[in-house]
Each structure stands twice: as structure tokens, then as C-alpha cells.
């Protein structure tokens, strides 16, 4: 059984169809990347899946339960989904360690000592332990994104959602973050990542979903999708984002 199953998901904004019937599955321990041109509905899909945006129609089955039904425990659901944002979204008034421990203490009700221990373990995993007492404004973009990944990861979510995790970073910082996400991939962390970055997509995915105008038009492994696909929309997209020299 899939961890997440999306059935005919529709989202309209002000009469505009952003998602026009998305169907997709994500199995436990697998990593999937969603790619496609800007405005195709990738981020909207991700936000619908943890109900940051309410879908207009369709079903999202998470761990066997339809989470689009009324009365679903959104708080409980979101604890199971780690979310990493494009612009890091670290809490500016808290240190890196406090960013990580806040959710552990207030949501998971862990004791401060245990939360700090957990944070220490996770921060060491991504090489951020030495920066634990810094505030977000004192970090580079790559460090901020690594801290944001740790904050999500420390909650032991069933799945990690990553929304364009490298698009706000320069190439060097982007590599730092790709390395960390690749590590998660090798550790079989279930992930769903939206990105424009083919380098990231290739190194962290079992398969890539290609979206166009609010629907999934293809799903395949990176090599076939990037270099050898029949669909002209997909060929054109990857011609524009991959350096083919």
C-alpha cells in the first residue's frame, strides 16, 4: 500500500484551475521528485498534500486515511510530514538549536534535555552542530537550509516534503544542500521534492514526476526523462534546464 495516494486532485484559485486532476503515489522508503515549468502546480500540489491549502476536489489518502474528509486531525497529520521551504523559513528569533527543539518540546512534548539530545544528533548528521547557537541571520543560505532540513527531520516524520530546497541558493551552497538530501535518500527517507534543479532531482530520486498545466504527464527515472522522452513538452523543458554541452 502506498504511503500517499493522490486521486484526481483538483485545486481552483479564483476560477483558475491550478491542479486539474493529479494522480500520483508515493511508497514508503521511496523518493519522488516533481518537476515541470513554473506555474504548472508543483508547489500547490505539495501544499495541498499537507493541507496548507485546501484542495477543491479529489482524494489524498495518507497512511490509508482520506485526509480530505472533514474532521481530519490536521495537527496530527502535519506532525507526520516534514516540510522544507524554498526560503528556509527558520524562526528568526530562535537559534538553530531552538528552531529544532521547539517542535520537539511543544508538539512532541519531549523534555528539554531529550529534545536537545535529539537536536544534537540530527545537527551532527548534517554538519550543523557547530552552528547550533547561531541565529538564522548569522548563517549562510546553505546553512539555513540544512538547519531547516534538520528541524523537519528531527520530528521523525513519515515523509519529507521539500519545496524547491536549492532554488534560493548559489551553486556552491546548493551542492551543500544536495549532499545532505542525497544522504537522506541513501538512508531511505521517504521524500517528495519539488524542484527545477535537474542535478538535485537526479541525485535524490527513484523517479521523477513531470507536471504540465496542473496534471501529471509522465513519470520515469531521471535518465529517460531528461534525455530521451517522446513528449515534446518534456524534451523542451529539459533542454532549457540541462546544460547539454
Amino acid at each position, binding site marked *: 500500500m502506498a504511503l500517499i495516494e493522490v486521486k484526481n486532485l483538483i485545486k481552483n484559485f479564483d476560477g483558475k484551475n491550478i491542479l486539474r486532476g493529479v494522480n500520483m503515489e508515493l511508497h514508503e522508503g521511496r523518493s519522488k521528485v516533481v518537476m515541470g515549468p513554473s506555474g504548472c502546480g508543483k508547489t500547490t500540489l505539495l501544499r495541498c498534500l499537507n493541507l496548507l491549502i485546501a484542495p477543491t476536489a479529489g482524494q489524498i489518502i495518507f497512511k490509508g486515511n482520506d485526509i480530505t474528509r472533514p474532521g481530519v486531525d490536521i495537527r496530527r497529520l502535519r506532525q507526520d510530514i516534514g516540510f522544507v521551504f524554498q526560503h528556509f523559513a527558520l524562526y528568526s528569533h530562535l537559534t538553530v538549536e531552538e528552531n529544532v527543539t521547539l517542535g520537539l518540546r511543544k508538539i512532541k512534548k519531549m523534555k528539554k534535555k531529550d529534545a536537545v539530545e535529539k537536536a544534537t544528533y540530527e545537527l551532527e548528521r548534517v554538519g550543523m552542530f557547530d552552528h547550533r547557537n547561531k541565529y538564522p541571520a*548569522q548563517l549562510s543560505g546553505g546553512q539555513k537550509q540544512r538547519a531547516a532540513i534538520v528541524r523537519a527531520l528531527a*520530528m521523525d516524520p513519515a515523509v519529507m516534503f521539500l519545496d524547491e530546497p536549492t532554488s534560493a541558493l548559489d551553486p556552491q551552497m546548493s551542492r551543500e544542500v544536495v549532499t545532505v538530501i542525497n544522504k537522506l535518500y541513501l538512508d531511505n527517507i521517504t521524500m517528495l521534492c519539488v524542484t527545477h534543479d535537474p542535478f538535485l532531482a537526479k541525485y535524490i530520486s527513484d523517479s521523477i514526476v513531470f507536471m504540465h498545466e496542473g496534471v501529471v504527464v509522465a513519470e520515469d527515472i531521471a535518465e529517460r526523462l531528461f534525455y530521451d522522452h517522446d513528449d515534446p513538452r518534456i524534451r523542451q523543458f529539459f533542454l532549457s534546464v540541462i546544460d547539454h554541452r
Partner: protein
Amino acid sequence: MNVFLNDLIAYWPQILMGLKNTLLLMAVMSITGFFGGIGVFYLSISKWEIVRKWTQSYISFFIGTPLLVHLFLMYYGLPRLGIHLSAFTVCVIGFTLNVSAYNARYLMTAYRGLHKSELDAALAQGFTPFETFRLIILPQVLRLSVPSLTNQVIQNIKDTSVAFLIQYPDFFTQMQEIAAVNFQFFKAYMTAGLVYMAMVSVIVVAARKMERQIALPGLQT
């Protein structure tokens, strides 16, 4: 000068009582106005449009009308409806309603400067909207609003001087009485001005110290 000094010494107990009343009113309204401001601010970012509109009307009314009108309405108007409140109670209610509106506006301005992605992150992490307000929004907007909030405390101490118009025996009332006795208005009001300035200076020094203490490393405040 000697006559004036002699009067100051003679009226010292009343002046001291006036000072005590001024500081008490300032402290009470600063505290109630602070928490009132947080409450109004919370409502002003409510997800319900009707609540936001009502809150906005409240803020506009109290910022847009003179404080004295509110005090007079309560002190001289309410007895017509059979409601009799002491001068102190009227001052506390009137000033609290007024200061809350101003403080809410300062917090709202700071809120507009927050990265909204942090709020999304908190909700995505599993925090409730109230927890997001308490743990993420409030600490940040309070920190950003410290200069405005402390300026409001300074404003509060100066505004207490209008309380004498509804018979509240504050410091200014006592100085007014001395002037009425010896007709040395210039000296009396000059002395009052200097005392207010001294009180304000203490608040300014404390406020600047607090601003430095709570400044976040890496961020300019």
C-alpha cells in the same frame, strides 16, 4: 524664588502624593494597555473577516478621537445613565482603551514586516494557529516593536497630566494648586515640566538598555 521654594516644601506631601498617583496611573495603563494591545492585535489578524473589521474600527475610533473626549464621556456622561465611576477607574479604562489601540497598531506594523513563510512553517510543523501566534509571531513583533512600545510608555506618562481635568489628583494637579495659591504660574509649570522630563529620561535610558539587550545577533534593530 524663595517664596516658591517655601511653597514647594510646604506642599511637599501633596506633591509626593501627586507623583505617586501619576506613576501609579502610568504603570497601570502601561501594563493594561500592553496586554490590551496584544489582545487587539491578536483579533486584528483573525481568520474571520468580521472580527478583523470590528477590530480595525475599534483602532480607528480610539486613534481618531481625542483621549479627553473618552475621559469626559465616561466621567461626566455615564452618571447620566446612572453609572458612577471614580476618576481613577475612568482614567484606567479610558487610557487602557486608548493605549491598547495604539499598541495594537504598532504590533500590526511589525507583523507586516515578518516573513510569512515562518508562519507557514509553524503550521506545517503541526503548531495550532494560537501556538503559532504565541511562539512565533508574538515574540518577534514584540521585539520589533520595542522602540514604539517604549515611546508609548513615554507618551503615557505625559498624558497622565490630562487626568487633572476629571479631578484625578495627579502630580500636575498639585502643581496647578501651588500656582493657584502663589500665582507663580511660570515657575510651577516649569518645575512640572522638569519633573516630567526627569521621569521620561529614566524610561528612555531603561528602554534603550532593553533594546540593546534583546537585539538579535546578525540583525539590525
